């Protein structure tokens, strides 16, 4: 009997630790994403509070500075009534939040966080990750439309406008890096950054435009435009309540998390500098990536304490002019660097 239980546990553990399950469910997938989101939201509130001469969340686990406040909030969200207004388009309204979250998390399957432990191997993971990331916002527009609320509609439209203007710099700067390192495979990309030649150093233009576009796409200040509270209440999510609202809120943080990992891989050297023999085990490399991603996220949430928000037309101008120009310049810069290398001028 004991044997069979032990055997069962072993089978489950074995299954859990197969990359195809571990990656989407545990790390860097769902579980880590949830923990990261909780910690980052807490940090965001703590950082903003400190800058603003306040304490921030404190009384839920006071000794740890209130870090479990977000767990309490999550439980509250679970038990709050989900109100579906009479006049909404019910199916997309109910499915929307789940799909939002799914598509913001899905790209993790394409992110190798340790070099050898990965869900599947492809030589176009960078492309796949960026492409999957651009699906989520479409559901923002859909929930905005389905909500049958003027504020939600305006919020959805704003997201729609922004989508076009931030995805382009993301794609072009990712392309610039692919050109620079001559590969679309993230593992290869990280390996190429080996001798300290991190992407952010080789091509800072691409790094900056990718980062700004990331903040734009995850509703960080000063680009928190689709949900601008004092203008359009909560944008596309105005009609949501309970856990459905919780999912919508989590969406932008999860997306920030995924994009930060991507940024860490492409521009911050991924799991480098890890030296043999630590490269044999995926744990340390994974932690390094998580740490770098957390640092990027922290920058993103810190901006809340610094900025007001731009107007939609100004954000679009930023997206289409400086950001687009910068990402294009980064592509040119990459071509130049590759030319230097190939020509052997140095």
């Amino acid at each position: 009997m004991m044997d069979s239980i032990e055997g069962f546990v072993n089978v489950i553990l074995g299954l859990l630790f197969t990359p195809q399950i571990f990656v989407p469910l545990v790390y860097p997938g769902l579980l880590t994403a949830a923990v990261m989101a909780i910690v980052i939201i807490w940090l965001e509130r703590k950082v903003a509070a400190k800058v603003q001469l306040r304490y921030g969340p404190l009384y839920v686990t006071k000794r740890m500075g209130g870090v479990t406040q977000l767990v309490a909030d999550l439980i509250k969200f679970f038990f709050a009534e989900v109100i579906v207004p009479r006049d909404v388009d019910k199916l997309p309204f109910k499915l929307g939040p789940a799909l939002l979250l799914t598509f913001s998390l899905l790209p993790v399957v394409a992110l190798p966080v340790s070099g050898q432990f990965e869900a599947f191997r492809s030589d176009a993971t960078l492309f796949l990750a960026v492409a999957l990331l651009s699906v989520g916002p479409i559901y923002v527009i859909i929930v905005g439309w389905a909500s049958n609320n003027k504020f939600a509609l305006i919020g959805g439209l704003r997201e729609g406008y922004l989508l076009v203007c931030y995805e382009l710099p993301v794609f072009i700067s990712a392309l610039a890096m692919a050109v620079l390192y001559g590969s679309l495979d993230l593992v290869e990309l990280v390996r190429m950054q080996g001798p300290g030649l991190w992407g952010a150093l080789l091509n800072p233009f691409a790094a900056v435009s990718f980062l700004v576009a990331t903040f734009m796409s995850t509703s960080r200040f000063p680009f928190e435009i689709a949900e601008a509270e004092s203008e359009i209440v909560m944008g596309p999510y105005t009609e949501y309540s309970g856990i459905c609202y919780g999912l919508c809120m989590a969406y932008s943080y999860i997306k920030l998390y995924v994009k930060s990992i991507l940024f860490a891989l492409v521009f911050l050297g991924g799991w480098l500098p890890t030296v043999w023999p630590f490269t044999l085990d995926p744990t340390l490399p994974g932690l390094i990536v998580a740490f770098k991603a957390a640092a990027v996220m922290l920058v993103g949430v810190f901006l809340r304490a610094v900025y007001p928000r731009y107007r939609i037309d100004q954000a679009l101008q930023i997206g289409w002019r400086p950001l687009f120009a910068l990402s294009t310049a980064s592509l040119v810069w990459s071509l130049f660097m590759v030319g230097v290398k190939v020509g052997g001028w140095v």
Partner: protein
Amino acid sequence: MRLGLPDIKAHVRASETALKYLTAKPRITVPYPEALLELPQGYRGMVKLNVETCISCTQCARICPSNAIKMHKRERKRLPGINYQRCIFCGFCVDICPVIALEFTDVHDLAFHTLPEHLFEPEGFAKGPPPPHVARGTRKVRTEIDEVRGFKYE
């Protein structure tokens, strides 16, 4: 949308300023249940009646802008009672009393279990407001204006 050098400088300066506060000490919030602000001298808190001094002149009830003070008939004289549902803490009653029978206390905790408890008849008015419930481990702090931090609580 310009993005010249001065703008970048301004962006950096804004972020620097916020960062400065991230590491600096000031906090204006009083961590309330742990620290309790002491009300300063001369604070216009809840009011207490001195029955012996009162001469039943009714001035306090007459000047009360919100009709919170009413005169109650007692055996020997008419005495004021106060309704804290209405009181707006202007302190006019205290200031007009010709014999200084009313005085401010340093209590401003208007929390009662029931509505009738808000009404202090002369007897209760004379006893003064009940001392507020204070959580265990609460320390009383005084506010002091500080040049760097705005407030110091000690």
